């Protein structure tokens, strides 16, 4: 029998991100108000933006005027995508009961987290009520953790020897490795610092009674974060209205942890990916081999080489023709390989016959030699010693026969490996293959956030890099199989990571005005106010309404204050995707690292801009007092600079933060 679904603990009902049921009617009213406000805000935004483009660029200072209007355009598009997202941010009804027969593997991924932390999560995972197997996936391969896992009675997996010398693909590789060695119908993915509640499966498995559902994601909520959230660890807007809105459009994302995945959906991804990759790599490889062989044939070759090249050319052409005619690739490549092996053997036989003849001529022929000849010929014709290896054409043809993805440890890569954030890339592929996802907005795991700014910064950099990587490698706007809304939902999140460039302009423009009197717009007088103020006020209120009481200010501050990180993420991801440069990201150690202090170098840009902004305020105020400048424009820019500074000031609290326990002890 199925266990009855656990009632919601009333004490938990106030935890941010937790599930607070609103009546259907209240929800409809809230949504109506929200949508009305969205329409008003977006209209005001475009009213302002069109005026900016067509009536207020100060062309005399185009070098700052145009960048500013571009930055504002970026922000209005960002706002529009946000509006579109929350347009459908509606709570889901309670899930149906979990079928008792579903088999589940709980995967706890770890690399270098403290062993105590991993064990705490593993012990909690054992207490999950729905029947399941718990696995610790230790990419750190720590004997101590293996011992402790055995003592606790949970399964323990590390990478096998097939991974030696092959790309490891970080967490995606860790999960893929485990997927091939386990058998559960569903996978609960947990980071080592996410302590699951006993009801986590009872509350999520029910959604899978719809056979098209491939993923159920729940929030990531951190318990070691003091009031005020100095590091901006919680993401209430993302794990609230944004994911609910994406869910409304059929596009809620996989976020790496606290999610249940259907094995069938993942394996299908792996197989489709394998077939596509193999087909295209074999075809491309054979075409390349044909081109190389053709070039080689035009050279002046010794007759023996010419003969081999001609035969290779025939074999390649035959293979390409067979694939074109629909012959299975494994057969075609095997036949090609066999043909090359034959060629190799015939050449070795020829050489050996020549050697015997020479020896006989010298009177040295002995019976013993011919006995070992067959074995010797086999050995010399084998792939590694083949005389054909000297021919690039033959080598390329052989390489093209690889249907086993020899460069990879595993032929199947169900979790996407194209990005350092495997989660988003994987769910995008799931959606493209027609699987549905669910966002279940109820905290079902207690997370532990990084307690040091340095770690937190490293983590954000990695997320941003990964997101931009996915955009550049697998652009959702062009990915086949996604619905229009799904394209926009993925694109929206990617778009938001380009904010760093706009922020620089928002810091520079008012400074230039206050310090040097450079005016980027034609006027800061009444026409500006009439369009800008209503838009700005509507915009801020929209966040208040959409967030329905959740704290979002911290997130807004960090979006601005971390602009160097967002820029670095974009440039390093582009360098990685386009020029193959490494990202140099570190796995983020999550607890016990608050000693890991941030250095001033990490915040150099913010510090520099803070000083510049303060200078701008002082100079602007002096000019205002002396009456040498136009007062309204100066006041607008003073307010703007002050707003920038207040946002940047979030880093002061972050640098001073000494960790959760320290904070609690102080109170």
């Amino acid at each position: 029998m199925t266990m009855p679904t656990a009632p919601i603990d009333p004490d938990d009902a106030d935890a941010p991100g937790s599930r607070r049921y609103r009546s259907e009617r209240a929800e409809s009213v809230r949504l109506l108000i929200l949508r009305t406000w969205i329409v008003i805000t977006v209209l005001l935004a475009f009213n302002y933006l069109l005026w900016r483009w067509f009536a207020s660029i100060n062309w005399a200072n185009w070098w700052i005027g145009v960048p500013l209007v571009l930055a504002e355009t970026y922000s209005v598009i960002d706002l529009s995508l946000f509006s579109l997202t929350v347009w459908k941010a509606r709570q889901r009804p309670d899930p149906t009961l979990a079928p008792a027969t579903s088999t589940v593997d709980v995967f706890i991924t770890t690399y270098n987290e403290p062993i105590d932390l991993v064990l705490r999560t593993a012990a909690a995972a054992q207490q999950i009520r729905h029947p399941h197997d718990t696995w610790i996936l230790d990419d750190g391969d720590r004997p101590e953790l293996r011992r402790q896992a055995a003592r606790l009675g949970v399964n323990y997996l590390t990478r096998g020897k097939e991974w030696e010398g092959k790309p490891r693909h970080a967490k995606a590789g860790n999960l893929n490795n485990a997927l091939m060695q386990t058998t559960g119908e569903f996978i609960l993915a947990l980071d080592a610092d996410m302590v699951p509640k006993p009801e986590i499966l009872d509350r999520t498995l029910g959604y899978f009674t719809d056979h098209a559902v491939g993923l159920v994601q729940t929030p990531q909520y951190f318990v070691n974060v003091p009031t005020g959230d100095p590091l901006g660890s919680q993401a209430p807007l993302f794990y609230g209205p944004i994911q609910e809105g994406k869910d409304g459009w059929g596009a809620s994302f996989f976020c790496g942890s606290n999610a249940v995945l259907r094995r069938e959906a993942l394996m299908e991804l792996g197989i489709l990916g394998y077939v596509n990759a193999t087909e295209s790599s074999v075809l491309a490889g054979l075409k390349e081999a044909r081109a190389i062989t053709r070039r080689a044939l035009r050279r002046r070759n010794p007759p023996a080489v010419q003969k081999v090249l001609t035969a290779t050319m025939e074999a390649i052409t035959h293979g390409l023709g067979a694939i074109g005619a629909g012959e299975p690739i494994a057969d075609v490549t095997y036949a090609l390989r066999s043909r090359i092996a034959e060629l190799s053997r015939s050449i070795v036989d020829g050489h050996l016959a020549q050697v015997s003849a020479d020896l006989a001529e010298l009177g040295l022929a002995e019976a013993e030699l011919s006995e070992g000849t067959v074995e010797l010929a086999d050995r010399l014709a084998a792939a590694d010693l083949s005389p054909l290896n000297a021919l690039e054409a033959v080598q390329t043809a052989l390489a093209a026969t690889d249907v086993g993805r020899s460069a990879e440890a595993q032929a199947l890569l169900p979790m996407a490996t194209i990005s350092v954030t495997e989660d988003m890339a994987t769910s995008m592929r799931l959606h493209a293959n027609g699987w549905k996802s669910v966002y279940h907005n109820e905290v079902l795991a207690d997370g532990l956030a990084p307690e040091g700014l340095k770690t937190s910064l490293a983590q954000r950099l990695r997320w941003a890099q990964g997101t931009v990587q996915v955009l550049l490698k697998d652009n959702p706007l062009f990915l086949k199989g996604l619905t229009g809304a799904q394209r926009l939902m993925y694109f929206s999140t990617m778009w938001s990571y380009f904010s760093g460039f706009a922020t620089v302009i928002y810091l520079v423009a008012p400074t230039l005005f206050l310090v040097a009197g450079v005016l980027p717009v034609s006027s800061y007088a009444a026409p500006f106010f009439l369009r800008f103020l209503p838009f700005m006020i509507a915009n801020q209120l929209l966040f208040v309404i959409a967030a329905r009481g959740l704290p979002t200010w911290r997130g807004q501050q960090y979006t601005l204050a971390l602009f160097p990180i967002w820029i670095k993420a974009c440039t390093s991801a582009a360098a990685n995707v386009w020029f193959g440069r490494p990202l140099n990201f570190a796995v983020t150690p999550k607890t016990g690292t608050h000693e890991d202090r941030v250095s001033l170098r990490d915040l150099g840009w913010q510090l520099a801009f803070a000083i510049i902004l303060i200078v701008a305020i002082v100079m602007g105020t002096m000019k205002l007092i002396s009456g040498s400048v136009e007062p309204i424009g100066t006041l607008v820019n003073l307010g703007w600079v002050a707003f920038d500074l207040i946002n940047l000031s979030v880093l002061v609290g972050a640098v001073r933060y000494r960790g959760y326990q320290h904070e609690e002890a102080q109170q």
Partner: protein
Amino acid sequence: MSQFTIDEVSPERAIIRAGNRLNMVSAPQLRETVNKAVNSGRSHVVVDLSATEFMDSSGLGALIGALKTARAAGGDLRIAAAGQQVLMVLQLSNMDRILRPYDDPATAFAD
């Protein structure tokens, strides 16, 4: 308790008979069985699917893994005697672009 049996046809060849279901539960066993055959030098492996009434994507994944293992050892993996459901899965997943379903396990390596 493996539902796979190895028939060692020759020093280079083996026929592995799969059970009734080649799914997420039995997929790891198929992997192990193929590894065993290949490690004993029999890198030319035929998987006989005549008894298999149901295969899912995990089963298919295990076949791909087995193909990788056999090819890496200089051999090959072939499938034979697949039934209706298995053929349908091969088609739906486009795996028929890669693997040819042979009729008879005994002659799958006739070429």
